[in-house]
């Protein structure tokens, strides 16, 4: 093992845990990543030293908390290279961010007969909000098809645009198969057709740099817990031009400027979209997770994850009776696979007993599974803190599964 990796692993307390008497090999990073001690400590320290409700408080602690909260927003803005921190709205996570856009953008811009484009590769969180919006507005949901290898059929996308198309929502990286979608090309095509693009970035911020201005997306939704930050926080980047035109999503608290029983005027961006006491502690945790990622640097992350993906792909595909699902040319460090005649639940149960944490099932992508003609997969998703040795243990477990069920 190289010493930098050792050092990095020691930053994550949970990697020191055992599972069923064996060292834990955590390969469920696409579901949620583990947290470095500095993130955990920042939350701890906030509650011990500075906890307070933010905004409009005159007293010192309230101002400290406000500064820390707004400081976290600034960090997110510069991490994504947003043009202003007013374009960063804190939400509970990706799902809420997408729901916010579907609801507010939908209310302002989607009408009967209009069309919304999603892809066959989406997580339920980027399908159902649009589907339900379409039901409500009598609009039409169009779907970019996916090839057997997990790549989107971009040629087919061309024919989906028409004068009724109002928005396109697609994931940056597929959580189920690891496909990195050609988002720049998709955005270019959409913009040529005058259609704004929402990227579901749940899997997008942990593997490499994201520059929303360079990509040109109109919205980018993400979750802190999938990028080494805490649960309960995430966000939405939105271009000011769009956010300004969208009505608020929830009402109450700082998002209000002036209320009478007859009328209410709303605050400016980003507050307009943040109702109720914000989750200050976890926003600070998210800011520190960004510090952590910038500290280790994308070079290390990408190199380590590329190595694990290559090594894992080679080893897993070499096991007879195992088939990798999702073999796109551009992939993040996620390997989904199925086993001949062995149900993923059976496999997952045994692999778990060997101290290896993988996720099994449809990964909240039922339409994709239907399309691929399977019920689910076994998914190992790697972080830069994983090791080749851990992958060897996964392979051992899979071999054990074969022994048991064959």
């Amino acid at each position, binding site marked *: 093992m190289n010493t930098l990796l050792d050092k990095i692993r020691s930053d994550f307390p949970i990697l020191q845990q055992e599972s069923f008497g064996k060292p834990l090999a955590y390969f469920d990073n696409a579901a949620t990543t583990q947290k470095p001690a500095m993130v955990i400590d920042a939350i701890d320290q906030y509650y011990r030293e500075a906890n307070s409700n933010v905004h409009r408080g005159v007293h010192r602690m309230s101002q400290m908390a406000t500064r820390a909260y707004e400081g976290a927003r600034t960090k997110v803005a510069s991490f994504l290279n947003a043009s202003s921190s007013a374009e960063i709205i804190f939400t509970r996570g990706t799902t809420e961010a997408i729901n916010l856009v579907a609801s507010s953008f939908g209310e302002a811009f989607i009408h009967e007969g209009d069309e919304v484009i999603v892809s066959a590769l989406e997580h339920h969180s980027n399908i159902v909000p649009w589907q339900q919006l379409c039901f409500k507005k009598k609009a039409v949901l169009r779907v970019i098809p996916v090839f057997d290898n997990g790549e989107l059929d971009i040629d087919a996308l061309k024919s989906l645009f028409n004068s009724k198309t109002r928005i396109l929502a697609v994931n940056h990286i597929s959580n189920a198969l690891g496909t990195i979608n050609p988002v720049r090309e998709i955005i270019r095509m959409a913009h040529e057709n005058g259609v704004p693009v929402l990227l579901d970035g749940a899997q997008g911020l942990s593997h490499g740099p994201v520059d929303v201005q360079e990509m040109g997306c109109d919205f980018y939704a993400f979750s802190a817990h999938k990028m080494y930050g805490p649960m309960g926080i995430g966000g939405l980047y939105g271009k000011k031009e769009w956010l300004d035109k969208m009505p608020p999503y929830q009402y109450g608290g700082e998002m209000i400027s002036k209320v009478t029983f007859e009328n209410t005027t709303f605050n400016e961006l980003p507050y307009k979209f943040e109702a109720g006491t914000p989750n200050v502690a976890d926003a600070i945790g998210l800011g520190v997770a960004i510090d952590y990622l910038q500290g280790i640097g994308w070079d290390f992350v990408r190199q380590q994850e590329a190595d694990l993906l290559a090594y894992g792909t080679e080893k897993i595909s070499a096991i007879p009776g195992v088939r990798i699902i999702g073999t796109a040319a551009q992939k993040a460090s996620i390997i989904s696979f199925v086993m001949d005649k062995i149900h993923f639940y059976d496999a997952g*149960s045994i692999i778990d007993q060997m101290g290896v944490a993988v996720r099994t099932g449809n990964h909240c992508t039922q339409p994709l599974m239907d399309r691929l003609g399977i019920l689910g997969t076994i998914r190992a998703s790697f972080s830069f803190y994983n090791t080749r040795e851990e992958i060897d243990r996964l392979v051992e477990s899979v071999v054990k599964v074969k022994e048991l069920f064959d």
Partner: protein
Amino acid sequence: MTIKDTIEEIVGEFSLFEDWMDKYNYLIDMGKSLPVLDDKYKIDSNLITGCQSRVWLHSEYKDGQIIFAADSDAVITKGIVNLLIRVFSNHTPEEIIGAETEFLDVIGLKDHLSPTRSNGLLSMIKQIKLYALAYKAQGNAV
């Protein structure tokens, strides 16, 4: 045998296992030996929701007793349903409704196969008890 007796028997069997591997081997054997369920019963109305694997649970009411039959696409799940059938099948609705299910705790199933939605163990037991309640209501109605 009463439900309680079967449970004690099962607890006795499980107490022999030295490690998880033995336990799973046993469940796998139980799964493989579960009688085949006729395809005509593998219908959506018999499907138990909330499981990672699909489980069909069919029941019949005969001579005051309920007979359960089941299938699943996962072997371990089949093993678990087999255990449940052994415990609950061929008993009256009253017996089933009144039965304690803590034995799952004792044999370590709850520990290794959590009551959360992933395997639907709780859903299965709930469904078994719901069938019993339904037949009881039906019986009372007659």
